[in-house]
């Protein structure tokens, strides 16, 4: 039996896609500044990177507020329950066409692997990248703030964070194709509605 459920609210979809665009833009302009790609001149890249950084910061503040006021932050609490099942599913069951071991519901949207990944993303990677980025942006003011860190160290830390984001996005985009059909996760993130299996047959 299949059933359509309303999984992602309007805000979540707006947040997800805005964030996706901002991070993609930050990666492109960031790797332009780094010298890896050559799509625009350095000055333009810096200008847009700073604008996107402020955009992402604003969005993040807004999202934190939303998560706490709605209580939705609980979705990201890591759990070991069925973690093993999920690993087995991605390495075995998925190939055999078995149903996912964790059922999506509006109350529990995320499987244990998603939970731990997004938890690390939000609690470690985001703060790390925003902090290293803003210290980099305000490098000239650091001595006045009593912070002693070289531009090289900040640059390297921030680049390392960028690689982590890029690797996450590669896997994240791929895993979006592992739903009921290749595009069902994607559709859900656009429309909010996802078709899920209701109970085992």
């Amino acid at each position, binding site marked *: 039996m299949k059933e359509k459920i309303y999984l992602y609210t309007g805000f979540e979809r707006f947040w997800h896609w805005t964030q996706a665009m901002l991070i993609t833009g930050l990666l492109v302009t960031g790797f332009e500044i*780094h010298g890896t790609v050559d799509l625009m001149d350095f000055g333009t890249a810096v200008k847009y990177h700073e604008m996107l950084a402020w955009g992402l910061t604003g969005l993040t503040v807004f999202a934190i507020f939303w998560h706490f006021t709605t209580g939705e932050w609980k979705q990201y609490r890591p759990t070991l329950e069925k973690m093993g099942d999920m690993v087995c599913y991605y390495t075995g069951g998925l190939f055999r066409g078995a149903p996912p071991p964790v059922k999506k519901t509006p109350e529990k949207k995320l499987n244990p692997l998603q939970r731990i990944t997004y938890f690390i993303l939000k609690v470690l990677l985001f703060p790390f990248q925003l902090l290293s980025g803003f210290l980099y942006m305000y490098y000239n003011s650091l001595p006045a703030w009593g912070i002693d860190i070289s531009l090289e160290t900040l640059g390297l830390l921030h680049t390392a964070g960028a690689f982590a984001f890029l690797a996450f996005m590669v896997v994240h985009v791929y895993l979006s194709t592992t739903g009921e059909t290749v595009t069902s996760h994607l559709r859900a993130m656009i429309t909010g509605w996802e078709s899920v299996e209701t109970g085992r047959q």
Partner: protein
Amino acid sequence: MVCHDTTGTYKKFPAGCGHPAYEEKKMGKKVFIPVDLRNVARHVGRTSRKTCGTCHFYGGGGDGVKHGDLDSSLLTADKNLDVHMDAGGLNFGCTRCHTTMAHRIAGRFYSSPSTDRYRLALPDDDGSRIACESCHSRRPHRTNRKLNDHTDRIACETCHIPALARVNPTKMWWDWSKAGRFDENGRMIVKKDDKGRIIYHTKKGEMRWATNVMPEYEWFNGVITHVLLSDRIDDSRPVRLTQIHGSCSDPASRIYPFKKFRGKQPYDPVNKTMVVPRLFGKKGTGAYWAEFDWLKSVKAGMDAAGAPFSGKVGFVETEYLRPVAHMVAPGKDALSCDECHVEKGRLEKLRGFYMPGRDRNRVLDTTGWAVVGIALMGILIHGLMRIITRSEGRRRK
């Protein structure tokens, strides 16, 4: 007199130690008629670009020889050549910045460090000397905070003088070792290029000229020292006749632009010192321009200077770095970020600091791309397995 003459008739005699011709004198084919000093004295006036330029535009023996940023093109500069001296605009004279009080003319670099701690031209800050920051402050860019963040380590001139000699050419190479050649009739050779610039002269050797020259860049704290006759030189590589002091670890240093004047000069290969040859003079004095014999010329010059000379003359390549401060271009022509923030950019040679866009950590980059690569490989394999297992599943059904 030469500074305040408004008649344009006060001319110095080249070999007159600063004096004009007091009676009719010949220099080669040129005749120098005595200057009517009374007339000049009755027509003294304020100094101008013209009076200052009479000497400073022609340093080194001709227009634009010595400086790449000071030549006669500044007499009628337009905005593109110099925003401040633009005859149709601000029309600054030299003394607008080179403040002069009681005949003490403010220079720029030689005796004092760079002006990093000064913001405005207040007497308490820096006497009467005017620098860019005096008017523009240390955060002069209105719309770009990040550009202002550069002013602690990058001099204004570095970005705002994108090229030297943008109208008239400047001499970049002067090879004295080639001097002293005569044609088959024993006459002196003077060769000019298609633009009329001397590229060979029996008296001076071979020269090269250039326009729109990209400056050299160095860390500079305002102190320049020179190679003296008493200094031992290393003749295994080009000798830097001016030593530019400063480094990126010195907070008083900033990156400045320089004209690098290269050439070959006589030196003493035994004592390993530079030498002073005697150029002017009559036959029998050892003067190079009369006898064309370097040995005699250097002997005469070193004797006159009271410096030791081994009796041997060689030629060594030299470099003379001179700070650049004039010919400030309009903002639209200032260097863009990626002139420097790129591999093999203008600051490629300056090392010891991290510059985004140019520098990176190989280990981090390799690791980073390896992680991304592994992720890609992983999803590729996983995806392929999904496709294979799915078609197998269908076949079984």
